[in-house]
C-alpha cells in the first residue's frame, strides 16, 4: 500500500496484491484495506464483489477453472463443467474437504486449444471429460 502512497485510486492494485498474498479476501482484510486507504468499507466491498477476479472465499487445494468462452462452448466446455460438478462441487464452490475448487472463466484467450481448462495454473488443451476423470483420480478424489 505504501508503494501506492495509500491512494484510494490504487484500490484495485491493492486488492490484487492482497489476494496474491492471502489467497482470498477475508472480511477483516477488506476492513483493514478500507481503513488504510481511507475509503468507506462499502466502497471496498463493492469493488471486491463487482469484479470476478476477486474471491471472498478461501480456495481449495486444487483448482479447476473451466473456460466457457465461445470457442470452448462450441467445443463442449460445458460437458467438462458437468463432469466436475458431478464429481466435486458446483461451479464457484469448493468441496467440503477443501480439496478441489471448481470455477468457470469467461474466455482465457486460448481459443486455439478449445476446450481449455486451467488446472492449478497450467493450461490443459483439448480436454475431454475422461481427462478430467484421470486428473481427479490422480489426486485421489472419489
Amino acid at each position, binding site marked *: 500500500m505504501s508503494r501506492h502512497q495509500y491512494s484510494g485510486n490504487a484500490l484495485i492494485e491493492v486488492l490484487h496484491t492482497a489476494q496474491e498474498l492471502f489467497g482470498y479476501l477475508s472480511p477483516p482484510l477488506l476492513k483493514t484495506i478500507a481503513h488504510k486507504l481511507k475509503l468507506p468499507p462499502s466502497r471496498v466491498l463493492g*469493488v471486491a464483489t463487482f469484479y*470476478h*477476479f476477486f474471491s471472498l472465499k478461501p480456495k481449495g487445494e486444487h483448482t479447476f477453472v473451466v473456460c466457457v468462452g465461445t470457442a470452448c462452448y*462450441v*467445443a463442449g466446455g460445458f460437458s467438462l463443467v458437468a463432469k466436475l460438478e458431478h464429481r466435486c462441487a458446483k461451479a464457484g464452490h469448493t468441496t467440503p474437504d477443501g480439496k478441489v475448487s471448481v470455477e468457470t472463466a469467461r*474466455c482465457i484467450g486460448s*481459443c486455439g*486449444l478449445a476446450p481449455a481448462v486451467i488446472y492449478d495454473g497450467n*493450461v490443459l488443451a483439448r480436454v475431454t471429460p475422461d481427462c478430467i476423470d484421470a486428473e481427479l483420480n490422480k489426486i485421489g478424489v472419489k
Partner: protein
Amino acid sequence: MTTEELRDKQSEEVARQQALSNRILCCTAAGCISCGADGLRHALNAEVESKGLAGKVEVCGTGCMGMCSRGPLVYSSADHKLFGTVTPADAPLLITPDGAHLAQRAIDLQEPFFSRQTKIVLANSGRVDPEKLTDYIAVGGYQSLAKALDEMTSKEVVEEVKKSGLRGRGGAGYPTGLKWELVAKQIATPKYIVCNADEGDPGAFMDRSVLEGDPHRVLEGMAIAGYAVGAQQGYIYVRGEYGLAIQRLQTAIKQAEREHLLGARILDQGFQFRIDLRIGAGAFVCGEETALIASIEGKRGQPRQRPPYPPASGLWGQPTLINNVETYANIPPIIERGGDWFSTIGTASSKGTKVFALAGKIANTGLIEVPMGMTLREILFDIGGGIPNRKFKAAQTGGPSGGCIPEQLLDTPVDYESLAKIGSIMGSGGLIVMDDSSCMVDVARFFMEFCMDESCGKCIPCRAGTVQMHDILRRITTGEASDADLEMLKSLATLLKETSLCGLGQTAPNPVVSTLRYFPEEYETHIREKRCPAGRCNCSPAPQEASA
C-alpha cells in the same frame, strides 16, 4: 539513447544476427506454451550447449506464429522452414538438420494460410523475441518514434494518421485521426493516453497475442500518440487473466525506460512520456471506455452517460485518448511508411488490415491478419482450411455484441459497413466457426447469459432486460415457450437496443436478432415441435408434462 545510437544499435544487432549460422525461433505464445513449448526451448538450448555451438546457433522464444492448431511451432532461419508439433526429442534433428525425420512435420509456407495473409500489425510477431529490446530495434523498432520526434511536428503526426484512414480496431471503428485531433485540440492539461487491452470478448485473443509477441510495438505507438496529442502519461489497462502479457509488458517498459525510449528525455530530446500498467479484474463491461476509466480510477467499472466523451473529459476529468491495442500497433508502420501507403490497403472506407482470431470448428485455428475487404468465405475456407468432417452452419463475429452470419452471406467482404449491414459488427476480431452440431437458439442463449452476468446493473433496460431475454431463450431451449414468447423476445430486443446506457446493453440483443433473422426455422422447431434440430438442447417432454 540518441537517434544515431539507435541506428548504430540496429546495424550492430543485424550484423550479429547475420553472423550466426542459424537462428532457431521457437513460438512461446500462450497457445504453444500449453503444448509444451517451454520444455522444447530448454531442450534446444541444451542441445546447442552440448554440441558447443553457442555463439553460432541461437535459440529465441518469439510471439505467436499464427498456426496455433499445429503447436508447438519452430522456425529454422537457415533453411527457412517451419515445423509443427515438435517435441523436445526432436531437438537434435533441428540443431543439425538431417531433414528426413522432421520433413513430414514441415509446414508448407506457400499454403494459403500463409500466402493469403498481409501482415502489418503481426509483422514482428513470431520473428522477434518479445523479451529482448535489441531484437525489436534490429527490425527497425523505435525508428518511427525517432522520426516523429526529429522530423515532424505533433500536428503533422496527427495529419499523417488522418491521411492513413485508420479506424479504431476495438470494434466501433471511429476514425483514429479524428479522435487524436479532438484530444490534441483540448487546452486542459495534463492529458492522458490509455490503451484498452481489456479484451473481454469470449473467443478473441488478438490483443493478447500482440502484447505477448510484440509489446514494444504497442509502447512505441502509445509514445507517438503521446507526442501527437501532448500527453506525458499513458496507462495500459490489461486483463488480469493475461499473466504472460502482463509480465512481458512490465519487462518491455523497464527495458525501454533504461534506454531512454520511454520516461524522461526520450531520445535525448525534450519529450517525456511514462507508461504504467493497470490490471483489470475480470469485468467485460470495462471494455466500454467510460467504465474502463472508472476502473483505472479504482472504482467499480460502471459506465456513465456520454457526452462528455473522454477526449474532453476522461481520466480524472482530463482529456483522454483511448485506443485499442491493435490501433496503437498500427501507428509505427504508418509513421514509418506514410499514411498514403497505408491507405492503399483495404477498401474505400475501411483501410489497412484486421487481425482475426480463428477458433471453433475450423481446421486451422490460430491468429491471422488479412486486408480489409477480403470475403468471409476466403478467410474461412482458404486461410482457415474449412470445416473438418461436418457442414458449415454459421460464423460469429464481434463476440456477445455481434451476430451470426449464415452460409448464404459468406461472400460479404469484411469491412465495418458491410458487416453492420448484415446485422453483425467487426468487433475486436474474434471469429468463431460453428458447424451443424451447434444449435443457434442455444448460442443466442449462451451469449445472453454472458451479457446478463456481465451487466453492471446501473441502467434498468440492461439489468432487467437481459434477465428477461435469457429466461425466454432458456424456456425455448427446454421446450416450454409459446409463440407469444417469441414476440416478447423481439420487442425486448428493440427496447434494450434503444434505451440502454452503454454499448453492452445496446448490443446485447444482436446475437438474438441475427439468429432470429437467419435461422427463424430453428426457433419455430423448438417452440412448435418441441425438438432441437441440432440435437443439442434437451427439449425433453418432462417439463411439458409438468406444465400440462
